[in-house]
C-alpha cells in the first residue's frame, strides 16, 4: 500500500515548488518575510517525498518509478526515479531547503524578497523536474528553465550594471552549450526516426529507454566529417557533452561562472555550487550508456574534465574575492566529476558511482563554503579578502564550519581507514581511478592533472581560510555572528560535509551502479563498452600505498604552504605576486579570457564584422528596393515633360506618327 501511495506522489516533487513560485510571485509582497514560507514548505514536502522514495529504493533498487504521459506529437513528459535520480532528488531538495531557510535571514533587508523566493522556488522546481525527467526533451526543457532562473537570480540586483552584464554573460555562454545539446537532441531524433522507420504507436520517441535500445544501431551509423569516419553516437554524445560543458562550467565555457557571483550569495550556493552546475555532470551520468558505447567520447570527457580541474585551480589561487575563489573551486571540482565520468572508459559503471558520489559530497561542502562566505559578507559587508582577516574571532561558528568545509574540499582523511571527511571519500577514488587509467593505457595525463589540481585545491582554500579568519583585521568592519536561522543550516551542512562520505561510501556506489539495470532499462554495460571499443578492467582499491597516500600528501603540502605564507607570514610573496610577474599577471587576468571571449570573439568578430557586414547587405538590399522607386519617379519626372502643352509639338508628333505608322503597316504587309 505504501508503495503505490508513494509512486502517486512522485509527480508532486517538482509541482510543489512550482506552485510555491506562483503563490510567492503574486502574493509574496503582502506576506511576512516575502512569502518565504511557501517555498520552504513546498520544498520540505518535495524533500520528504524524495527521501522516502530513496529509502524505499535502497531496499529494492530494481523497482524504479516510471510514469509517462503524452505531451505533444510523439513526445512525452514523465517521471523516472531510479537510484541516480533518487539520490539527486534528495540532495537537491535537501540543500535547497537549507538554503531557503538560511536565505530568510540573509535576504531579510532586501526589498525584492518576494521576487527572490519566487525565483528560487521556480529554480528548485525546474531542477527537480530536470532530475526526474524520463526523456531527453523534458530534460532539455528543465535544463533551459534552470538556466533562465540562473539568469534571473544572477541579475537579481539588476540595478547594478555589473550584475546585469554577468547575468547576460551567464545565459549566453551556457546558451552556446545548450545549442550543442539541442543539436545533439535533433540529430538523435532524426536518427531514431530513421532507425525506427517512422512513428510507432505507444512508444515515446525521446524516452531514455527508447534511446538506449537503439545504441548499437546508432553506433553503427557513420558520418563523414572532413574525411574522418565518425560514429553518429560519438557526434551525439560529444554534442551532449558540449551542453554539459556550458552548464557545468568546463573549459572553455567556464567563463560565466566566476562572474555569476554577482548574484546573492545564497544563489551562488544553491545554483552555482550545489545544484544547477552539476546538471552537466548529471546529464553525462544519465546518458552514460551512450557515452560508453561511443568510441572516444569518454576520452574527451576525461581530458577536458581533468584539464578544467587544474586550469581553474590555477586561477583560484590568485583571486582576492572570497566568492570568486569559491567559484573557481567549483569549476575545478566539477572538472573532477567530469574526469571521474570520463574514466568510465576503464572502470565502467563504477565511474557513475564515484562521480555522483563526489557530486553529492561537493554539494554539501561547497554549499556550506558559500553559505559561510555569505555569513561573513552579511556580517562584514565586504568580500575582498585583502580587507578581511581575523573574522574567526567574531564569528566562531562560521569559522569552524567553514574550516570543516575546507577540509572536506581539500579531501583530508586517512587512506585505508574509515576516518576522513566526505570529500576525501569521493575525491580519492577519482584520483585512484585516474591512476588505474594511467596504468591501463599508459597515459598518465589525467592522473597528473588530478593530482596537481588536488595540491592547488588545498592551497587556495586554506589561503582563503587563513586570509579571512586568522590574523588581524585589515580594515575597519563591525562583524557579529549570524543569527541562529543562518548558523543552524551551516551546522547541518557541516555535519554532512564531515561524515556523509564516510558513512555511505560503499553502499552509495553499489546503489548507483544499479541505475541501468532495473525495470525501466536493463543494459549490459560490458557489451556497450565493447561497442565503444572500451576495455573495462577491475575496480579501485588495490593500488600501491604511495598512490593511496599521495593525494593526502599533496593536500598537506598545499595546507603547509598556505600556512607559511598567510598564517605565519614567514614567506613573503613580494615580487612573485605582483603584476610585474608575467605568470601572476596571466593568472590574475584569468588567462585574458575576457579579452578573448567578450572583446575579440563577441564584440569583435560577431558584432563588429559579421553582423556589420550583414547590416551592410541589408542596406544594399533596401537600396535596391528604394532604387526602383527612385528610378520610376525620376523617369516619370523626365517623361512628363514630353507633354509640352504646345499644340505644334503635338501636331508634329501626330503627323510624324501617322507617316511612320503607314510605313510600318506597309512594311509589315510586305513581309507577310
Amino acid at each position, binding site marked *: 500500500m505504501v508503495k503505490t501511495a508513494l509512486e502517486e506522489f512522485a509527480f508532486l516533487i517538482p509541482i510543489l515548488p512550482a506552485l510555491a513560485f506562483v503563490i510567492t510571485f503574486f502574493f509574496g509582497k503582502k506576506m511576512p518575510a516575502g512569502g518565504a514560507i511557501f517555498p520552504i514548505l513546498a520544498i520540505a514536502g518535495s524533500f520528504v517525498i524524495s527521501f522516502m522514495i530513496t529509502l524505499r529504493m535502497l531496499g529494492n533498487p530494481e523497482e524504479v518509478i516510471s510514469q509517462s504521459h503524452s505531451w505533444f506529437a510523439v513526445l512525452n513528459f514523465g517521471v523516472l526515479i531510479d537510484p541516480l535520480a533518487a539520490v539527486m532528488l534528495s540532495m537537491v531538495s535537501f540543500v535547497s531547503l537549507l538554503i531557503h531557510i538560511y536565505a530568510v535571514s540573509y535576504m531579510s533587508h532586501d526589498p525584492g524578497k518576494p521576487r527572490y523566493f519566487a525565483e528560487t522556488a521556480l529554480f528548485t522546481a525546474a531542477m527537480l523536474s530536470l532530475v526526474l525527467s524520463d526523456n531527453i526533451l523534458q530534460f532539455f526543457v528543465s535544463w533551459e528553465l534552470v538556466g533562465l532562473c540562473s539568469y534571473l537570480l544572477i541579475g537579481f540586483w539588476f540595478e547594478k550594471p555589473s550584475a546585469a552584464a554577468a547575468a547576460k554573460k551567464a545565459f549566453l555562454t551556457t546558451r552556446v552549450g545548450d545549442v550543442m545539446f539541442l543539436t545533439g537532441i535533433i540529430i538523435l531524433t532524426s536518427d531514431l526516426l530513421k532507425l525506427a522507420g517512422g512513428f510507432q504507436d505507444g512508444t515515446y520517441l525521446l524516452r531514455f529507454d527508447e534511446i538506449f535500445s537503439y545504441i548499437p544501431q546508432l553506433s553503427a551509423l557513420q558520418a563523414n566529417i572532413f574525411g574522418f569516419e565518425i560514429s553518429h553516437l560519438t557526434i551525439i554524445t560529444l554534442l551532449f557533452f558540449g551542453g554539459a560543458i556550458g552548464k557545468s562550467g568546463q573549459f572553455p565555457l567556464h567563463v560565466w561562472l566566476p562572474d555569476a557571483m554577482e548574484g546573492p550569495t545564497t544563489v551562488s550556493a544553491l545554483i552555482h555550487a550545489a545544484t544547477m552546475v552539476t546538471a552537466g555532470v548529471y546529464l553525462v551520468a544519465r546518458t552514460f550508456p551512450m557515452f560508453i558505447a561511443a568510441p572516444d567520447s569518454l576520452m574527451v570527457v576525461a581530458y577536458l574534465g581533468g584539464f578544467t580541474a587544474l586550469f581553474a585551480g590555477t586561477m583560484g589561487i590568485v583571486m582576492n574575492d572570497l566568492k570568486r575563489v569559491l567559484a573557481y573551486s567549483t569549476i575545478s571540482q566539477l572538472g573532477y566529476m567530469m574526469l571521474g565520468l570520463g574514466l568510465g572508459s576503464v572502470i565502467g559503471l563504477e565511474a557513475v558511482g564515484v562521480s555522483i558520489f563526489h557530486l553529492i559530497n561537493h554539494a554539501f561542502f561547497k554549499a556550506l563554503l558559500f553559505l559561510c562566505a555569505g555569513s561573513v559578507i552579511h556580517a562584514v559587508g565586504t568580500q575582498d579578502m585583502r580587507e578581511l582577516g581575523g573574522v574567526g574571532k567574531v564569528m566562531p561558528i562560521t569559522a569552524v564550519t567553514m574550516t570543516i568545509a575546507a577540509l572536506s574540499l581539500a579531501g583530508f582523511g586517512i587512506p585505508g581507514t574509515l576516518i576522513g571527511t566526505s570529500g576525501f571519500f569521493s575525491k580519492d577514488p577519482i584520483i585512484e581511478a585516474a591512476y588505474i587509467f594511467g596504468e591501463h593505457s599508459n597515459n598518465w595525463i589525467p592522473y597528473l592533472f588530478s593530482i596537481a589540481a588536488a595540491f592547488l585545491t588545498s592551497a587556495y582554500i586554506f589561503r582563503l581560510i587563513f586570509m579571512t579568519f586568522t590574523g588581524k583585521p585589515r580594515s575597519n568592519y563591525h562583524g557579529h555572528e549570524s543569527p541562529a536561522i543562518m548558523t543552524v543550516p551551516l551546522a547541518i551542512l557541516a555535519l554532512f560535509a564531515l561524515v556523509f562520505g564516510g558513512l555511505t561510501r560503499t553502499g552509495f556506489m553499489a546503489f548507483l551502479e544499479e541505475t541501468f539495470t532495473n525495470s525501466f532499462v536493463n543494459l549490459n554495460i560490458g557489451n556497450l563498452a565493447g561497442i565503444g571499443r572500451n576495455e573495462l578492467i577491475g575496480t579501485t582499491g588495490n593500488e600501491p600505498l604511495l598512490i593511496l597516500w599521495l593525494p593526502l600528501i599533496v593536500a598537506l603540502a598545499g595546507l603547509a604552504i598556505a600556512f607559511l605564507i598567510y598564517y605565519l607570514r614567514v614567506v613573503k610573496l613580494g615580487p612573485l605576486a605582483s603584476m610585474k610577474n608575467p605568470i601572476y599577471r596571466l593568472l590574475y587576468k584569468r588567462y585574458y579570457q575576457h579579452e578573448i571571449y567578450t572583446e575579440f570573439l563577441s564584440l569583435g568578430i560577431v558584432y563588429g564584422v559579421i553582423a556589420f557586414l550583414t547590416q551592410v547587405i541589408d542596406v544594399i538590399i533596401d537600396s535596391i528596393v528604394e532604387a526602383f522607386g527612385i528610378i520610376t519617379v525620376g523617369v516619370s519626372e523626365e517623361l512628363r515633360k514630353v507633354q509640352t502643352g504646345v499644340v505644334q509639338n503635338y501636331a508634329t508628333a501626330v*503627323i510624324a506618327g501617322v*507617316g511612320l505608322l503607314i510605313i510600318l503597316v506597309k512594311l509589315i504587309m510586305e513581309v507577310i
Partner: protein
Amino acid sequence: MQTNRLLPFLVSLLFVAVVVIGAFGTSWNTVSELPGNPADQSNIEGIGMLIFTQYAAPFEVLSVVLLASLIGAIYMAKGEGNK
C-alpha cells in the same frame, strides 16, 4: 523660334511623300468619263437638290452652328471693355 524648322520640314516631307506615294501606288476605282452635260458643266442644281432633300437635316444643324458661332464670335470679339 526660327531654329526648330528642320524637324517640321522633315515631318512634312515625310508626310507628303507617304501620301503621294500612297496615292500614286493605288489604283483608284474611277469612272472613265466625267459625267454630266458637256454643254452645261454646272451642277449647282444637283447640289441644291441634294442639300434640300437628302441633307436637309445637316443643313439645318449647320445653320444653327453658324448662328451660334456668329453670336459667340461677336460676343468675344466685342469684349467687356467697350460696352
